[in-house]
């Protein structure tokens, strides 16, 4: 009897899974999936988004045709509002964004989308690596010189960007004597400024660092890496990336040059900004109300990507680092953490961003 029940349960489960699979396969069969990107054509988000979209489509049952459309503007805000207000929840439109999470954290007046309300599919993370010119402040011989040299210039993009907030918070925690110069439009312009010795210090994502900073500055001996911002887990430990072996995390760097562990409101703020910005450098989601069958297929396709050898090879070749994909539930948790951030830290960050002109 037990065997019969087990057999029935098994058969029924198999039938349900098969039926779900069939129904799901039918969802995208012969359909066109539109992928919206919230930055302009040719930027880092666009290039990475198009590569992800191409390989995502291969892994969706029914193999829909995919077209990519750019919806740029206002630091990613225009595309976010589009997904919240215009995009139809029919399973045929999804986003691969650089989500403006810090804009939501700081309460940007133009942002009308609530990121927690979207149906999250996945996140793609990449940490940022910081570098310093070897001739800064009269000469740099070792990493510890970052806190000894006087008056070097640290380059940023916009005082409310996660790049600039992290850069200043980390340098302040280290007690470095620096001058903050912001206003460069994009990481490649930041790197150009350091190459021209207009500024001496900055940070870039792994693709930016590996693709532009390393060949033009690190390999020729113009600059050296300092540290990377590793996400910090709830137990207080760093999430270390094997492909960045040889570069210390910020906390390791701090312990080496300052001794002990960083603490205080600046450290807490750095952790908040860095965790969400690193894990969710890119995020993929669908509008609220998207059919469950479509979501299941999309999430399953995202889940297959880390094991898709063709994708991993192309991604690694293009961005000089393996893809760091986080599952839908993890992505959603990071996005939700924006809303639960300690109000004291939010207020501190708002004030800190405003004061970000010069040290």
């Amino acid at each position, binding site marked *: 009897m037990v065997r019969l029940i087990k057999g029935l349960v098994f058969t029924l489960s198999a039938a349900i899974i098969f039926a779900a699979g069939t129904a799901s396969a039918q969802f995208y069969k012969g359909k066109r999936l539109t992928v919206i990107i919230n930055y302009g054509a040719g930027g880092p988000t666009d290039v990475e988004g198009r590569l992800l979209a191409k390989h995502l489509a291969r892994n969706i049952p029914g193999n829909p045709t995919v077209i990519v459309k750019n919806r740029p503007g206002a630091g990613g805000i225009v595309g976010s509002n589009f997904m919240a207000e215009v995009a139809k929840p029919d399973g045929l439109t999804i986003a691969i964004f650089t989500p403006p999470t810090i804009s939501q954290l700081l309460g940007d007046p133009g942002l009308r989308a609530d990121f927690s309300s979207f149906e999250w599919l996945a996140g793609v993370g990449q940490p940022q690596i910081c570098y310093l010119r070897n001739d800064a402040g009269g000469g740099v011989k070792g990493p510890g010189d970052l806190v000894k040299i006087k008056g070097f210039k640290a380059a940023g993009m916009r005082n409310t*960007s996660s790049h600039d907030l992290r850069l200043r918070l980390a340098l302040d925690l280290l007690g470095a004597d620096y001058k903050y*110069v912001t*206003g460069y439009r994009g990481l490649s312009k930041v790197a150009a400024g350091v190459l021209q010795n207009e500024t001496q210090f900055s940070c870039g994502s792994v693709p930016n660092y590996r693709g532009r900073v390393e060949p033009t500055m690190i390999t020729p001996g113009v600059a050296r890496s300092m540290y990377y911002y590793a996400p910090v887990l709830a137990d207080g430990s760093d999430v270390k990336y094997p492909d960045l072996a040889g570069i210390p995390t910020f906390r390791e760097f701090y312990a080496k040059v300052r001794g002990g562990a960083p603490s205080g409101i600046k450290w807490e703020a750095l952790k908040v900004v860095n965790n969400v910005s690193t894990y969710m450098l890119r995020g993929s989601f669908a509008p609220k109300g998207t059919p469950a069958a479509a979501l299941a297929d999309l999430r399953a396709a995202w889940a297959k990507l880390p094991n898709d050898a063709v994708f991993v090879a192309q991604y690694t070749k293009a*961005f000089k680092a393996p893809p760091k994909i986080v599952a839908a539930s993890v992505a959603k948790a990071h996005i939700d953490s924006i809303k639960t951030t300690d109000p004291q830290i939010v207020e501190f960050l708002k004030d800190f*961003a405003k004061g970000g*002109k010069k040290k």
Partner: protein
Amino acid sequence: MFDALLVGLVSVVAWPAIGWLGLGVMIGLYFGAVPGLSGLVGMAILLPFTFGMEPVSAFAFLLGMFAVTTTSDTIASVLLGIPGTAASQATILDGYPMAMRGEAARAFGAAFTVSAVGGLLGAVMLGLSIPIVKPLILSFAQPEFFLLGLLGLAMVGSLSGGSMIKGLIAAMFGLTLSYVGYSVTGGTPRYWVGMTYLLDGIPLIPIVLGLFALPEVLDLAIRDSSISRVPRDQAKSSIYDGVRDAGRHWWLVIRCTAIGVYVGMLPGLGGSIVDWVAYGHVVQSSRDKSQFGKGDVRGVIAPETANNAMKGGALIPTVAFGIPGSASMAILLGALLIQGLQPGPEMLTTNLHITFSMMWTLVIANVVGALLLMVWGSQIAKVTFIKGHLIVPVVCMFVFMGAWLANNSPGDLAALLIFGLVGYLMKQGGIPRPPLVLGFILGPIMEDALHITMSGYTGAELAQRPISMIILAGVILTIAIAARSNLRQRKSADVKKFGETETWDPRISLFMLLVITASFVYALIPAFSWPDDVGRIPMVTTIPGIALCVVAIFLALRRKTPGVENGAVALTAPVLGRATYFFVWLCGAGAATMIAGQLVALPLFMGLYILVWGGYKWWLGAAYAAVGLGFLYVMFDEIVAVIWYPSLIFG
């Protein structure tokens, strides 16, 4: 180096690279010819196709497409007075008047010849310059960019013909418009009036199409004559006349090639202003300036040479230093990385053959693209003899779609119509439009550069930058030359203007001056309450802008005979009535788009225009609309994958 040159050539002409190059050229010709599309859109669309290719084929495909967009963009600039891409804006100033004179074929001949020669010579010049490339690129940092921007503005004197004050006011107006949206340091959005669309600033394309295209379309609709005012049987020009013009002005071609290469090499500045710099140069360096703006072939040769030569120059900072000078070059850099290549000094040493293969691609594409267009040029030029009412609807379709492609937002259409009105009134009021565009382009470049210079440099550091000092001297010299020639023109009984129509109405001029003054005041007031780094630049622009406006208004009011200027005829009431009626039609097309989407609204507009304005038979209107719909679907939906407006009716 010679080996690398040869290896680069062999790899490009080998199969399959040469096949990809040919395909890229054909696609590029289309993307350049359609206003609103551009090399940038083409690059973004083609990039995913290169993921699986080997490097030389991938770059042959991408660069083959990219190289010729600035050759075929001449078609719309000359025929319709609409810039095909941002790099051919200056070509309009003389190219369109040539078409109106029945000399479109000659303009094409000159433009296509110099595009090929500029591309070819540019690559040669670049090859010879490789040893000095590194110090050159590394010594141009933000202080130099700010001063180069200032130099560009100083050229306003050359672009504004008889009225330098009006030219400067237009440039200041353009600068002020460029401040809309988030300030460079972020945090504070400026002049966004609660509209998210404006947070990122007004996009360039709707402004340019509005300022230049709509007034010309309006003119065609009102007059219903062909673009050429000269009948077809009396028009004598041919493609070969243009080729001969290019040969006769060989020294200008070489000079403008050098401008293209070296201005193009300056990352972040080159592509956007190179045509203006070349145009400013030809006007300033010519003894006889009387025909500029009226169809002087030198005004076509200069920008068209420079905008093709520029592409080789723009390649170098991208591949050798990982500094992309434009969005298109950023995509190329992405392609470089996807191919597993790294930008860096090796691209000028061990990987020099790949760099040379890219240059060869540019050379071959430029020559092939120009030859193809030469063959088709005579046929294309015949468009200028077609009746105006048959051209207006299709041009309107391109203009509406071109503007829409900027952000896929109703705001694009609103910006197009608003700047269409502004452009028409500026044209009728004798206020030059080119300086407005130049100011608008230079605004963000200069603000970024000034901000970084002020926060990153001390006075002593700035004083130690010799290139800055040289550019500063160039700025002063340019202003002095422009002022002197302006005074001479004023003293001369025979006042020669260029860059704008000779006939303009002082009443409209006065009205526009008052509108611009009000805009400056509106922009100035909130600037006082902003942080220094946000409000500084708007103040520095609007305060002198207001002062110049006051002087210009004072001069306008002193005129004893309002309504007549240099024998010009004032705008008559019937003309104004027709213009208003056509503008209502355009607004109707915009409103219909909101209700039914472009795929219904634009064919409907085209069909109705043919019926009502053109007075043609119903079947012609229906056929016109059907062809328009087919074109919209195939070219914009299937190829460009445009996001259509989610209409109220069809969702």
